[in-house]
């Protein structure tokens, strides 16, 4: 991190096509000792330099070659975010293989489906938990898996399955292969083409089984050019550069984290800092103080709710300051939202008072003090949350995209923010709204190569003139920005013939810190009903304050006082909508939704069909 500070563009390629792997070589040649990644180990953030990362990638590439992974073969990665994830990802790309990631929360059945569908030859399973998901099933269930590589030996050491291989042995194998076939990986890299598939990103599958979206080198290059290097994205106008810090904590198998971690690293040289686990994100965030931070709405809402509770729980003098500070933040937020995210002299003045008073300390505690760009995407976020963060001076920009177009669709630029929209289309890309349905359609170099081994499904996602159908309905706002209405297939038609977008209502409900999940139903029914799940922490805190004793999640959500609380929130939401869009009845979801129980996808999206089946009695009760 010395001489390259001012250089903001990505490196050029001397030979072969620029791939995510070859870009690492560029950085390693340019600034070998600079830090590429950090991983917390025994309380210390151990640093991986670019040269070490490059060396590891080459060695891992040789090891894959030694295991017989050829061009176009699939390597699957089932792990929390860790340096080995990135090394293996890039090593696969280097030898022209294909990688695919699995969510650590994927249950056995899904692992089986994903490994067999992708036909992975080598499977990386981080620890005993993930190894067991493969080994517990009979060998015949995984006919194609030849090697399982693990990196946490605890508990696995005593296993005798011949498919198992420890990471260190894997790398040793790579070193030996490298000594005998020096240059083999580099030779393959030079042969890479733009059309090489580099990764399969499985869609979350809210409706059917997951489909593997194929992204190639051209898609990756386009995403790096458009998203990482987007003009006017950050507060200070500078593109991401090697001094930037990123906290890597969302699953890397999701296209968003892949772009905001791995592709930011290879494209702009930013440093990745791996969070220890999802539980420690808040602590790690405070340690790392990232300059670029992407989070899904769930995380932003969680931070927001935690902050509000903690501010309220402070000692009297602090609370006095907090009340004043929050008043100021509310004013600044409203003022900035009204002015496309810009300060007016009034809000600037209020900020000058509020910042030393408490915003700065608050941001430091949360870990966003040095944040110069923060983003949210992958789901809708409540405008109130964006307003709050704008108020304390953390500008959170909403962006939109999907796996199938390498996440390149729209983004909010600094100073041109419209809260409630997902922003403007990237410069020079094809993006249109369908005249009839209002569906957003894109056509550019980031559009994927198709679904893995599903040509019919692939054809179904394109219009006759070759535009990608995103399946999201949008409307233009002021002719420049796009607002997402809902998924096409989620739109509810009531028996009265009214078209209702459930997401809007759900998001309005979820604005409250007390509500974690809401699912509006009413397809073919007389009126709308909703299933509501409470946020256990905040409602628990609320119950404590109001002297309501409770034991479990179910007990708490069935308390009459809590139902009354939710009723109040539902009424508040109903005021914002027309009569036909109002929730007449709701029922409490008696358990916390979970990926493993099949209610949520790995990305924490509610599986609507599964929910309606699982809670059929509750749904029926709504219309009795």
């Amino acid at each position: 991190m010395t001489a390259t500070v001012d250089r903001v563009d990505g490196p050029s390629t001397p030979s072969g096509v620029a791939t995510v792997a070859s870009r690492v070589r560029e950085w390693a040649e340019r600034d070998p000792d600079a830090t590429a990644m950090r991983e917390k180990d025994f309380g210390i953030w151990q640093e991986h330099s670019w040269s070490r990362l490059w060396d590891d990638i080459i060695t891992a590439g040789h090891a894959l070659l030694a295991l017989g992974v050829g061009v176009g073969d699939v390597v699957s990665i089932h792990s929390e975010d860790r340096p080995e994830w990135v090394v293996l990802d890039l090593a696969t790309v280097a030898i022209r293989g294909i990688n695919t990631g699995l969510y650590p929360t994927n249950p056995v059945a899904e692992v089986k489906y994903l490994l067999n569908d992708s036909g992975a030859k080598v499977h990386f399973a981080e620890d005993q938990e993930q190894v067991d998901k493969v080994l517990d099933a009979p060998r015949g269930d995984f006919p194609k898996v030849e090697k399982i590589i693990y990196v946490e030996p605890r508990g696995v050491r005593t296993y005798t399955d011949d498919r198992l291989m420890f990471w260190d042995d894997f790398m040793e194998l790579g070193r030996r292969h490298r000594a005998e076939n020096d240059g083999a990986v580099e030779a393959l890299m030079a042969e890479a083409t733009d059309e090489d598939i580099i990764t399969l990103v499985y869609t979350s599958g809210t409706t059917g089984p997951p489909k593997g979206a194929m992204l190639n080198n051209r898609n990756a290059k386009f995403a790096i050019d458009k998203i990482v290097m987007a003009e006017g994205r950050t507060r200070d106008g500078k593109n991401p550069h090697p001094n930037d810090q990123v906290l890597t904590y969302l699953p890397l198998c999701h296209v968003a984290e892949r772009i905001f971690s791995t592709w930011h690293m290879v494209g702009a040289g930013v440093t990745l800092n791996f969070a220890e686990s999802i539980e420690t994100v808040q602590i790690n965030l405070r340690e790392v103080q990232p300059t670029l931070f992407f989070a899904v709405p769930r995380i932003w809402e969680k931070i927001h709710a935690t902050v509000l509770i903690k501010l309220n729980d402070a000692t009297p003098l602090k609370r006095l300051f907090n009340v004043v500070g929050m008043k100021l933040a509310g004013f600044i937020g409203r003022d900035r939202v009204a002015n496309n995210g810009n300060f007016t002299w009034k809000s600037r003045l209020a900020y000058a008072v509020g910042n030393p008073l408490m915003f700065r300390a608050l941001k430091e505690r949360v870990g966003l003090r040095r944040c110069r760009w923060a983003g949210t995407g992958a789901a809708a976020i409540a405008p109130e949350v964006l307003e709050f963060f704008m108020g304390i001076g953390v500008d959170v920009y909403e962006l939109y995209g999907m796996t199938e177009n390498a996440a390149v669709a729209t983004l909010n630029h600094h100073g041109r923010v419209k809260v409630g929209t997902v922003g403007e289309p990237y410069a020079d890309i094809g993006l249109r709204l369908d005249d009839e349905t209002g569906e957003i359609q894109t056509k550019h170099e980031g559009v994927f190569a198709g679904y893995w081994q599903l040509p019919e499904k692939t054809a179904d996602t394109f219009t006759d003139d070759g535009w990608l159908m995103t399946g999201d309905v949008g409307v233009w706002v002021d002719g420049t920005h796009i607002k997402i209405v809902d998924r096409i297939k989620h739109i509810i038609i009531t028996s009265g013939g009214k078209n209702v977008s459930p997401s809007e209502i759900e998001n309005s409900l979820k604005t409250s810190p007390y509500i974690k999940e809401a699912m509006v139903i009413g397809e073919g029914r007389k009126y709308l009903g909703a299933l509501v799940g409470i946020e256990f922490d905040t409602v628990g805190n609320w119950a404590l304050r109001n002297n309501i004793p409770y034991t479990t999640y179910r007990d708490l959500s069935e308390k009459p006082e809590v139902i009354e609380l939710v009723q109040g929130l539902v009424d508040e939401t109903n005021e914002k909508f027309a009569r036909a869009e109002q929730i007449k009845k709701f029922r409490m979801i008696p358990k916390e939704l979970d990926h493993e129980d099949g209610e949520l996808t790995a990305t924490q999206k509610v599986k609507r069909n599964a929910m309606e089946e699982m809670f059929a009695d509750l749904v029926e009760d709504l219309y009795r």
Partner: protein
Amino acid sequence: MRGRPHLYVSYESEQSLLPTWTQRVIVVLFLFLMVLIPLNGGIEIGERVFQPLGFLSDNSWLKILSRVAIFGIGALGLNILTGLAGQVSLGHAFFMGIGAYTAAVLGGEVGKAHWGLGLPIWIWLPAAGLVAALVGMLVAPTAVRVRGLYLAIVTLGLVFIGEYLFRNLVSITGGSQSGRKFPELEFRWWQSEEPALAFNSDGPIWAPFNWLDWLLGPWINFPADVSEEAKTYLILLVLLVVFVVLAKNLQRTRIGRAFMALRDRDIAAEVMGVPDAKTKFEAFAISSFYAGVAGALLVAFIGRTIPEQFNLLLSVQFVAIILIGGAGTVAGTLMGSVFVFVFPRLVQDFSVWLTETVEAGGVLSSVADFFVSTSLDDPGLVSTLEGVSPGLNVSQLNLVIYGLLIVGFLIFEPLGLYGIWLRIRNYWKGWPFTY
């Protein structure tokens, strides 16, 4: 990492004494102020002369500060033994005595009534520490056998053994009647030369440091004459800084961590591979070294004293320092020694001020009269009168307050002054949250 105080990329940075630049700047400024105190004159900025804490340059205050430094060094030693390693000791005065008389024998005047070799400070000061450390090692094995109150009794016994020995080894100590003279605070290369640096006499700022005058002369007005007290204070300040750094460093070494493990639970420590006997041995040796050095400095500072100086009261004073300051912390120990020596002076000044207020008359006079007795038939809490008076005299009042403070701290703030500081710091660190 720069700008990210919680992001540690190496154990060195996690353990560094002053991790942030703010802390570094504050410490340097603080030391600068401390050095500036005795240099009458201060910083010249334009026409004006700026000397913060200038009131402390008074000789009586400098003597107090010198005592703070000496007792600070001694208390750091007890803090290592009691605060870090958890070994209660009342024998600190004994080890100080050992150090003092080692210094006396090695550095005292040649011939005459008492033993003395007239060796220079660079021999007698370290030797005082080393001999005390050796004696400490002899005592250590008992600590392996007994702990807690019993260890306190054993070390208490040391003080009485020491007092008896010191009183009777007249050729070394001079006995109870007259005591003896001790080596001077001056630096000589060998026995009989003229001192190269004399910290014990008035005179110009010492020659070897003239370059300081040349370097900082334009900004700082170095006085031509520096008093004996000022020089003594400065050299003691330097020694204190050295010992503070050593103590701070000790805390973050393997030995320091072993001490803390031993303190928290000796059996658990041994299970973790911390050898009980060896670690206690080290704790006593290091602690006694500090005590020996402090003892030698104390007698050199006083000049002449009797063996009874090293009695139980001295030990108790050290215990008070680390209890009031906060056991187990270097900063607390320093705060404790500042408090223990500065507070009595403040009480005295306050009593004098009260008396003056009564005499001056006015609104405050009657309020002040309530506390102060100005004549034999005027009841009051404190009196500045000579001889017998109806109220307490100032030193009695000090003792009362002293006792109350120790009781108060033990009950309300077991972590001492440092605990109060911690609480204040955490209040601001947590801003705007409470947890």
